[in-house]
């Protein structure tokens, strides 16, 4: 039984190999996988301007394709991620970045939720203290 199984496996492997001779290996669309990975990571945080609610990575709009091409070329020319993003922001504004910059204007956005958490926690603690301490709570506020 075991031997039969091995045989089947061998035949299968052989078929697979012969198949592989006819069939080519699929080629990546990109020439340089390292640059492609950087492009991918970067373009996932950039907004497609035409369709507006898709990332540059996932959009198939022509402008998105052009921009990806442009980014690819710039990366190939040795620019850093930051330089490329600055290049895009200079042309399209902060609108292209899905990760808004942290500055005075966006402080509330970035830190507001944590502020709610801290204030909420503090208020809850105080109210709980009041609750735990006072036996005649029922009439206290009524």
């Amino acid at each position: 039984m075991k031997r039969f199984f091995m045989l089947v496996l061998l035949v299968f492997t052989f078929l697979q190999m012969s198949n592989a001779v006819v069939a080519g290996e699929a080629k990546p669309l990109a020439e340089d996988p390292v640059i492609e990975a950087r492009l991918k990571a970067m373009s996932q945080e950039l907004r497609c301007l035409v369709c507006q609610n898709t990332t540059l990575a996932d959009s198939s709009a022509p402008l998105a394709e052009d921009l990806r091409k442009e980014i690819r070329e710039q990366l190939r020319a040795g620019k850093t991620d930051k330089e490329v993003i600055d290049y895009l922001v200079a042309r399209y504004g902060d609108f292209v970045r899905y990760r808004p910059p942290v500055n005075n204007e966006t402080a509330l956005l970035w830190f507001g939720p944590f502020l709610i958490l801290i204030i909420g926690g503090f208020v809850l603690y105080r109210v709980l203290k009041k609750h735990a301490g006072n036996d005649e709570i029922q009439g206290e506020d009524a």
Partner: protein
Amino acid sequence: MSRMAKFLIPLALFLIAVGFLFKGLFLDPHEVPSPLVGKPAPVFQAPILSEAGKTFNSADMKGKVWLLNVWASWCGACKDEHPVLMEMAKTNKIATYGLDYKDTDADAQAVLLAQGNPYKATFTDVEGKIGIDYGVYGVPETYVIDKAGVIRYKQIGPITDEILLTKIVPLLKELEK
């Protein structure tokens, strides 16, 4: 009353939000203002449509006030804008240059032939490279560039008669001074 004060906080927050929402009704979230306004227009060289072999250099425009209208034969809104551009060329004598964006020369020429040519000259940007430099994200778009080569205004979407009269014409008058 002071007791009530803290319970009015949710209402106050809500009303502030309503204020912003109301304002938001009159804003267009699709319009992305260009950070290039007030900055020097990117310099480019491009082939001139229908003049084979000739190249236009935008640096040559120093000292002139001009409009750069980005358009394409495949763009629907450009057809709506076309009569306004014709009007501008005829009556207002505005120096409008076309940038034919991601298009074929044959298609672009066919359109200009059929509908009239409002441009002093049209340059071609087959690859869309100049478009990227100018931050074009939809056609038509129009840039007003002053004598020093600084972008003073960007119109996203077609120029309408109203925009022409209320924004572009007054601006040009001021810039020509």
